[in-house]
């Protein structure tokens, strides 16, 4: 798999001699969005070609480092040590936020609880709060579902909601977002987190508050106007030297039309 990606990347970079071609590589979260915009962009601008490749945020940023991509897409902010590596390689780069992705906290539809504060969420996911009655629900054990450690969502939730504390060891790790939805829908005391786009009728998403006073539901509007707190920005990173070449695509994705897909 990696070899195939590498091969594609090498072919893509070989094609880069032509300035009209842009390669984008990185996060699988950003991929569908960048792909959709790339298709529209290519239709509107004949002769320009945009190639979008997945692999994960880390893969994208290391491709930036070895110069095999024009843009790295990332679902997290560039890490300090990655910045240092780019620094060591003498590559100046720029950062653009292209969209915001909201993370919904979901429970079973039969659960009375419909809002939680960040501190309560931290307590639940670190295992300090074990029963729904402690947060205003029925007397029922809380069953916590999380993604696997490899997921970017796992890291994001840990960093932003749990204050960098570790998950309790009793947390159930599910291999995919679909499995979390399935389990939460059939387990009464369940709680989990998924991307906003994945929320279905079988589960109930709840309002979240960071200050303990104003509770907001996850929705596209609330994510855009930043009133919903569990939102992660999605980034593009690109070398300053290539700014001119990628400018048309970047302008398009940030335009009203490009943002429709975000």
């Amino acid at each position: 798999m990696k070899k195939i990606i590498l091969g594609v990347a090498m072919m893509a970079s070989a094609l880069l001699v032509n300035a009209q071609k842009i390669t984008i590589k990185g996060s699988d979260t950003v991929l569908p969005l960048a792909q959709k915009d790339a298709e529209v962009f290519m239709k509107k601008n004949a002769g320009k070609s945009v190639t979008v490749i997945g692999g994960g945020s880390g893969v994208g940023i290391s491709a930036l480092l070895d110069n095999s991509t024009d843009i790295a897409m990332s679902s997290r902010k560039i890490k300090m040590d990655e910045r240092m590596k780019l620094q060591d390689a003498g590559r100046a780069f720029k950062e653009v936020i292209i969209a915001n992705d909201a993370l919904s906290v979901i429970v079973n539809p039969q659960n009375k609880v419909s809002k939680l504060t960040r501190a309560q969420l931290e307590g639940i996911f670190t295992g300090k709060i074990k029963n729904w009655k402690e947060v205003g629900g029925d007397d029922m054990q809380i069953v916590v579902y999380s993604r696997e450690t490899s997921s970017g969502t796992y890291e994001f939730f840990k960093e932003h909601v749990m204050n960098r504390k570790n998950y309790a060891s009793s947390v159930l790790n599910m291999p995919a977002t679909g499995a979390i939805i399935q389990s939460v829908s059939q387990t009464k005391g369940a709680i989990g987190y998924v991307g906003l786009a994945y929320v279905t009728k079988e589960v109930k998403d709840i309002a979240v508050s960071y200050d303990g006073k104003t509770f907001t539901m996850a929705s596209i509007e609330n994510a855009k106007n930043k009133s919903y707190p569990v939102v992660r920005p999605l980034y593009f990173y690109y070398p300053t030297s290539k700014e001119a070449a990628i400018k048309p695509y970047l302008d398009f994705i940030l335009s009203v039309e490009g943002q429709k897909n975000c």
Partner: protein
Amino acid sequence: MISSGISSLAVLLIVIFLFREGFSLFSTSPLENKNIIVVNKTNPVSKLNAGQIKAIFDQEITNWKDLGGNNDSIILFTINDISNYFSDEEVGAEFEFLPDKLNALVDSNPTMLAVYQDKYLAKKFSGKIVNVAKNNIPDFIMGKQWFPTAEPAVQLGVAPLILGTLLVSFFAILFALPVGLATAIYMAEVADERLRKILKPVIELLAGIPSVVYGFFGLIVIVPMIHDVFNLPVGETALAGSIVLGIMALPTIITVSEDAIRNTPRSMKEASLALGANKWQTIYRVVIPYSMSGISAAAILGIGRALGETMAVLMVTGNAAVMPKSLLQPVRTIPATIAAELGEAPAGGVHYQALFALGCILFLITMAINIWVQAISTRRKMNK
């Protein structure tokens, strides 16, 4: 001759690769990315283990006196906090001033615990580097905490994973053996030829179903069933894993033990019937004792199948890395851990090596089982 040579060479190389990667774990520190832990030189604490570091960063330990130091609360510092103390200009565009700034920071905060990479150690370093114990085999096997991505120090205790694997496999075989054995006896001794011709392919079909399908079936059917029947808060349990694995081990058990039963010489059965024993007595007293070693081999092969199964277990057991106390609680198995985590573990890192070490443990368990099967089948030949 050549092909067998090539295949044994391939097996040997895989094993060597597995153990080389696995054992490199025990020469590394649990601190990731060449990080070091630095405290003020006046701090009496000079040694920490991975568990303490995790507790400090989870803010369960907030006072130095819990670590044998003075009664002062701990100020934590990681490289990501640098912007709270210094501006970008002070650090320098190429981080050229960073080492001195870090040194000065720890110097001026006697209760600070700082984590940063060793390349930012100042030339005139005036703090104290805390000694962190390396990963070692006893801690790895006996440890009860599995936090392979904890920052800054990972926690690698695989006891819950080993016990989870053994628990799920053992109960899987406990469910599968009676059912499998009954089916095998029925097919070999009771069923007529026509029925057998239908049953046999059906059972072999069971072996051909992809394991992810079993897992999906388990998640949709068995997990909610267990949840309702036992009135549990959560249906993803070791029991669900055992049932799914039991079903998956059935074809192996049935085929191997049926072969063993059919090997009973006709003359022995006829002698038993001639002495006035009925059919059931013949099966119970003659056929089963005669084919006992074949049946044990079937059971052990079934355990082997259950031990190595990955995808189905990953989907139904909930994967919580806790010490298993009962069948009705989530567990995490070794194959599920490797499958779920290897994809994103940075190659060559501590987490990556730990997963290879887990692979070594699984290999040793299955090898022991294979040797056991060998021993039993040799005994069988000698009996004849």
